[in-house]
């Protein structure tokens, strides 16, 4: 485990400067996204009013005078949780995407690939449709346990539960072969997707709600959602960052990683579960937002290389910033699905980077 195989030691001078530059730029980008995201929206509010509300409510400075209750509500209860929610979701998905691309050594890997999205979707869909079929469940369905909705809880449980099942099927003799994991995830996902399709067919009016969940939306993120999801994503990031050596070793392939002393089966299991926790927490508050978890790690691997000491934090910063900006775009465009914006903005940029770098995007060859 303590084999010195870090491809690019960061501890030396120039590399450290580079890391500081990358992370500094990422941090600045995120800060800029935060400011713009809170400042703009479907209702236009003067920047000094936004600052006055934020200063008064968050820092206790200044007086609330001159700002109407509606403006205060929009900034504090609608935009702030929404922007922070986008940060948490973007960070969680980018973080999970980085990990799945490393352990599966597959360029198509995204946070949803082994069944998280299908499981969460089925959970959420059940949560949306069930009260319509069994009216007794409708009362209190909106505000359930800990102020979290039934839909969020079922989505989170569905995501984690599905991955547990996939792992149980794919595991053999303490090993967790990537190809088996991928194929099992694909098969289980297909089965669950059939369940979602069936429920959608029978959902009547709730179809729009299901569809908007599947496309992903940050419109309904509340402070309670954040209080639950943010610590999960942060905790997972810290735990994953602490395992950067394992992630770097796994890029070499299961065989070489084992030869270098890594308990490959167990480590993959741990990493998979951590990434699944982050994904499920993100998806539970936002629905399945596509593209961020696939593209951000790729993009950064092309830009800063495959060392997870830099890749992981950089992905988190860029994922958070990207989703805040994408959500702002979605809001300004009249509430279109945020996944549409991430794809429209991200895909051309990604293609340009791919062509420019002339490198294959497989993580192990970068």
């Amino acid at each position, binding site marked *: 485990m303590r084999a010195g195989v870090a491809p690019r030691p960061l501890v030396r001078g120039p590399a450290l400067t580079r890391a500081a530059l990358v992370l500094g730029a990422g941090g600045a980008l995120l800060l800029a996204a935060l400011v713009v995201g809170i400042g703009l929206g479907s209702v236009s509010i003067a920047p000094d009013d936004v600052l006055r509300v934020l200063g008064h409510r968050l820092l206790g400075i200044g007086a609330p005078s001159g700002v109407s209750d509606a403006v205060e509500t*929009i900034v504090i209860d609608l935009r702030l949780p929404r922007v922070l929610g986008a940060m948490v979701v973007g960070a969680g998905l980018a973080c999970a995407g980085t990990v799945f691309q490393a352990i599966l050594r597959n360029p198509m890997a995204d946070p949803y690939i082994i069944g998280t999205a299908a499981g969460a979707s089925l959970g959420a869909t059940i949560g949306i449709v069930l009260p319509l079929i069994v009216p007794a469940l409708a009362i209190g369905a909106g505000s359930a346990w800990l102020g979290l909705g039934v839909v969020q809880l079922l989505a989170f449980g569905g995501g984690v539960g599905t991955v547990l099942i996939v792992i149980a099927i794919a595991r053999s003799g303490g090993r967790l072969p990537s190809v088996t994991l991928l194929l099992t995830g694909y098969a289980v996902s297909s089965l669950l997707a059939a369940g979602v399709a069936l429920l959608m067919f029978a959902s*009547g009016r709730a179809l729009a709600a299901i569809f908007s969940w599947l496309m992903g939306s940050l419109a309904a993120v509340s402070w309670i959602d954040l209080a639950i999801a943010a610590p999960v994503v942060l905790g997972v990031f810290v735990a994953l960052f602490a395992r950067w050596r394992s992630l770097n070793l796994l890029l070499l392939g299961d065989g070489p990683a084992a030869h270098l002393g890594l308990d490959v089966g167990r480590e993959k299991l741990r990493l998979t579960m951590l990434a699944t926790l982050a994904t499920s927490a993100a998806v539970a508050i936002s629905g399945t937002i596509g593209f961020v978890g696939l593209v951000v790690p790729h993009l950064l691997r092309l830009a800063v290389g495959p060392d997870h000491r830099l890749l992981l934090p950089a992905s988190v910063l860029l994922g958070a910033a990207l989703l805040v900006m994408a959500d702002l775009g979605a809001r300004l465009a009249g509430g279109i699905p945020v996944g549409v914006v991430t794809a429209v903005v991200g895909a051309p940029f990604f293609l340009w980077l791919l062509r420019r770098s002339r490198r294959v995007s497989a993580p192990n060859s970068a």
Partner: protein
Amino acid sequence: MTPHRLRALLLLFLVGLLAACTATPSASTDPSTRIAATSAASPSGAAAYPLTLTDDAGRELTLEAEPRRIVSLAPSNTEIACALDACDRIVGVTDFDDYPAQVVEVDKVVTMAQVDVEAVVAAEPDLVLAAGNELTPTAVIDQLADLGLPVLVLYPESLEEVTADIALVGAALGRDDAAAALVDDMETRVAAVESAVADLERPRTFYEVSVFEGTIYTAGEGSFLASLIETAGGAPVIGDALSTSIELEDLVAADPELILLGDATYDETITPESVAERPGWETMTAVATDRVVVVTEDVVITRPGPRIVDGLEALARAIHPDAFAE
């Protein structure tokens, strides 16, 4: 998400939009939970605030004073408020709102079926009229209520419930008398239709909401539309309670004697001739006996507001043209 799955979802979504446009109620709330008369309003009309009401979702809300700024999240709600002479109090509507004409000028807080919560809050409403059964998503209703806005959910599933909702909005707005008069007028007109069709034969009536990619949408089992057709003197051919669709072979087996083309309201290529050319349809009695009728009043037939009686009368005229001959 793979392009293939995305395409499938998009198709399903479009189908859903079409189905949603029909306002066919597809799930039922327990009638006993509706409109519990907890209103503290005096029956004489001058409402006493604070006023506590129970809406169609079983939620309680308290109005501190007579609402002056109303946001309506569904066209039917807008029509109710306007019929109670409160049109000038409406400060937010949907992009679907088209009646009465003056509401077209009001700020839009719902676009493309998405509630812009920021815009709702910015309108500073003291009453939000939402719609039930996910037409206004439950998550949005919860969010608005959590922000301290008084939200009244309206979800009528029958003529009686439309009039009950009109009375409920009347109570909320302090317009009990206007509501009572409107309800009275509506009930008189409904009774007139009922007595006109009482002794007539009830033709098996298929109301076409839409046909999309081979899937046929009609009045769902237990839906408002089905009960409306019944009141108008027809025997509705019904589809699945939730999806409101019917298989072609079930439709052929049900053998409608009368086909009403509600979707012709929006698409003039849908005609009795085009229906006769659809494979499998020619065997139905309605097609063979030339009883396929274009209906151009789908908007009022499927919008559960005060004009629902116009819709009922249009249906009755289409089903029993002789009984209503001028």
